[in-house]
C-alpha cells in the first residue's frame, strides 16, 4: 500500500510538470489558433539560455552568489523568450494569418528546426547543468502510518510547488488583469476582438512570450532533473497526450489531464509494464488519451466541436 501511494505521488509530481509544458501549448492555441509544435524546442532553448548565462555571468561580472546568478540568468532567458515571441509574430504569424491548421503546424515545425539549430549554435551542444540549489536528499513522510514512511524526493516536491505557483500566477493573470481579459477575448474570436480595438499582433507577442515563460520554467525544472540536453525536446512529446486529454482550449483541462496522465503512466509502468516487457510509458499515455477521445472527441474539458453545414 505504501508503494502504491509512493507511485501515485511520484506520478502526481511528474504530472504537474507535464501540465506546465502542456500549458504553453494551450495558451498559444487558445489565443492564436496555432498548434505550436515548437514548444519542445522552446523549452530546450530557454533552458540552454538559463544554464549558459548562469555559468557565464559569474565569470564576466565576477560574483560568487549562486542565487544571484540564477535570478539574473532567469531574467535574461525570459528577455530572450520575449525577443523570440516578437520575432515569431513578426516573421511567421503575421504572414500566415487565416491559413489551414496543417500549414500552421508545419510552420511551427520549421520554427522547431530553426530554434534547435540556433540554440545549439549560440549556446553549444554539450550537456549543461542547472543548479538551483535544491536539497537533494529524499525525505520520509507519514512514518506513523506506513513502516519506514513514504519516500519523497525533496527537489520533486519543491519543483512541483514551483509549477503550481506558476499555474496559479497564470490563472490570476488571465482572470484579473486587463491584458488577460484581452487575451481571453482574442481566444474567443479574433475578428470580434480586433473590431473592439484589441491589437491582435501585440496580443500574439504577449501570449507567445507567456508560453515562452512557461517553457523557461519547465526547462529549468526538467533541466535540473536530467541536464540540459537535446533530449529535453522530447518532453514536449510527452505533453501532447495531456493536451488532447484535457482539451486543446482549456487551461484547467491541461492541469487536470497532466495529473491524470502522470499518475496513470506511473501506475501502468509499475504494474502493467513487467507483464509486457517494460518501457510502455510513452505510448500508454497516448493510447489512454486516444481511448478517452473516442468517448469525448473534444477531450475532457475542451469546447464541444460544432460542425456547421
Amino acid at each position, binding site marked *: 500500500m505504501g508503494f502504491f501511494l509512493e507511485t501515485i505521488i511520484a506520478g502526481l509530481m511528474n504530472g504537474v510538470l507535464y501540465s506546465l509544458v502542456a500549458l504553453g501549448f494551450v495558451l498559444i492555441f487558445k489565443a492564436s489558433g496555432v*498548434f505550436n509544435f515548437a514548444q519542445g524546442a522552446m523549452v530546450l532553448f530557454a533552458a540552454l539560455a538559463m544554464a549558459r548565462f548562469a555559468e557565464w555571468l559569474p565569470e564576466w561580472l565576477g560574483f560568487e552568489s549562486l542565487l544571484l546568478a540564477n535570478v539574473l540568468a532567469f531574467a535574461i532567458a525570459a528577455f530572450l523568450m520575449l525577443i523570440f515571441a516578437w520575432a515569431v509574430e513578426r*516573421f*511567421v504569424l503575421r*504572414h*500566415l494569418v487565416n*491559413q*489551414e*491548421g*496543417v*500549414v500552421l*503546424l*508545419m*510552420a511551427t*515545425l*520549421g*520554427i*522547431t*528546426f*530553426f*530554434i*534547435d*539549430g*540556433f540554440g*545549439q*549554435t549560440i549556446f553549444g*551542444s554539450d550537456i549543461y547543468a542547472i543548479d538551483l540549489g535544491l536539497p537533494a536528499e529524499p525525505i520520509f513522510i507519514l512514518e506513523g502510518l506506513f513502516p519506514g514512511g513514504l519516500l519523497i524526493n525533496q527537489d520533486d516536491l519543491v519543483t512541483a510547488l514551483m509549477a503550481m505557483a506558476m499555474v496559479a500566477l497564470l490563472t490570476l493573470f488571465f482572470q484579473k488583469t486587463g491584458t488577460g481579459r484581452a487575451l481571453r477575448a482574442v481566444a474567443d474570436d479574433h475578428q470580434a476582438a480586433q473590431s473592439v480595438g484589441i491589437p491582435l499582433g501585440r496580443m500574439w507577442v504577449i501570449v507567445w512570450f507567456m508560453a515562452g515563460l512557461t517553457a523557461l520554467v519547465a526547462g529549468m525544472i526538467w533541466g535540473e532533473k536530467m541536464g540540459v540536453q537535446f533530449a529535453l525536446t522530447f518532453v514536449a*512529446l510527452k505533453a*501532447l*497526450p495531456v*493536451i*488532447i486529454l484535457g482539451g*486543446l482550449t482549456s487551461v484547467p483541462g491541461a492541469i487536470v489531464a497532466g495529473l491524470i496522465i502522470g499518475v496513470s503512466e506511473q501506475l501502468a509502468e509499475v504494474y502493467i509494464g513487467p507483464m*509486457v*516487457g*517494460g*518501457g*510502455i510509458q*510513452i*505510448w500508454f499515455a*497516448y*493510447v489512454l*488519451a*486516444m481511448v478517452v*477521445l*473516442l468517448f469525448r*472527441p*473534444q*477531450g475532457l474539458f475542451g469546447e464541444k*466541436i460544432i*460542425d*456547421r*453545414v
Partner: protein
Amino acid sequence: MFYRENGQFKTTYKSDQQIFAVKQDRIAIIALIAFAFIGVPLLADEYLFRAILVPFLILALAAIGVNILVGYCGQISLGSGAFMAVGAYMAYNVFMRVEDMPLIVALLSGGFFAMLAGIIFGIPSLRVKGLYLAVATLAAQFFFDWLFVRVRWFTLDSPAGTAEVSNLSVFGWQIATPMDKYLFVLGFVVVFALLAKNLVRGPIGREWMAIRDMDVAASVIGIRPMYAKLTAFAVSSFIIGVAGALWAFVHLGSWEPLSFDINRSFQLLFIVIIGGLGSIMGCFFGAAFIVITPIVLNQLLPWIGSLFGVEISTSMVGHAEFMIFGALIVWFLIKEPHGLAKYWSMARHKLRLWPFPH
C-alpha cells in the same frame, strides 16, 4: 504556341476521360518515363543512384500514400512512419519465414499488414477530427516504435529490433547494383503512381475529397463517412507499407525501428505539404526538395565558409543545416501554402498562353 489543344477532338468517352487529355502532355510523360528508365541509368553514377534517386523514389511513393490520407481525404496523420515500419517488418517476416517467397509478394504482403494496421488506427478518425486526430495517430507511431523493439517475434528474435535482408532477386534478375535497385524501385513507383492517380480521379477519390471539404455535408448527400475514411486509411497505409518495405529491403538493407521513428513521419508530412496537398505530381516535387536540400546545404555551407576564410566545424554545419532547413520551410509556407504543385500548374497555365502574356 506549342502547348495548345486546338485540333485535338475527343470522339469517345474513353479518350475524354484519360489522365493526360492533351497530346503534348502524353508525349511529355512518355518521354519522362522513357528518360527515367533508359536515360538516367546511362547518365547517372553510383552515388547519384544510391544517395539521391532511390531515396527520392521511395519517399515519393510514401508521400503518395500520405497525400491520399492528408491531402485528398483531409485526415491529418502523424503515424506514417509507423505504417512504414509495419510494412518493413511484416515483409521481412513473410520473406524470411516462408520458403522461397518471391520478393514482390513479400513486399506487397508487407503493404497488406500495414493496411490492417492503418484500418485499426484509423478507427478513431470516425469520432475524432482535426488536430486531435493528428495527436491520436501519434499513438500508432509510439506503439509500433515500442512493439518492434520489445516483441522479439517480429525481428526473428534479434536483440535490438534490427533486421537484415540480402540477396534480393526477381525472376532470376539479381538486384545487387545501385542501378538495379533504382530500376526495381522505379517500376514500383510508376505502377503505384498510376494506380493512385486513377483512384483519386474515380468515385472513391471524389468521396474522399467530399469528406475533406465538409464531412457533415458529404454524409448528408449519401457518402458513408466510415467507408470513405477507412478506405482512405487502408489505401494510404498499403502504399506507405509497400514504401516502407522498399525502404528497408532496397535502400537500407539492414534496419532498426529508429529508421521509422517520428522524424520520418514529420519528413513525410513535410514532403506532402511542400509538394502540395491533394496532388500526386506534388509528391515527387516535395520528395525531390526534401532529399536534395540537405545534400546541397551540406556541400554549400563549407564552401561559403571557405569563401570568407572561415573554417566551419562539422557540428556547426549540422546546426546551420537545421536552421536553414527550418527557415526554408517557414519561408516556403509563407510564399506558397499550396506547395510546389501550385507553381507547376501556374507554369503550365502560362505555357498555354506562351508567347502571349495573357
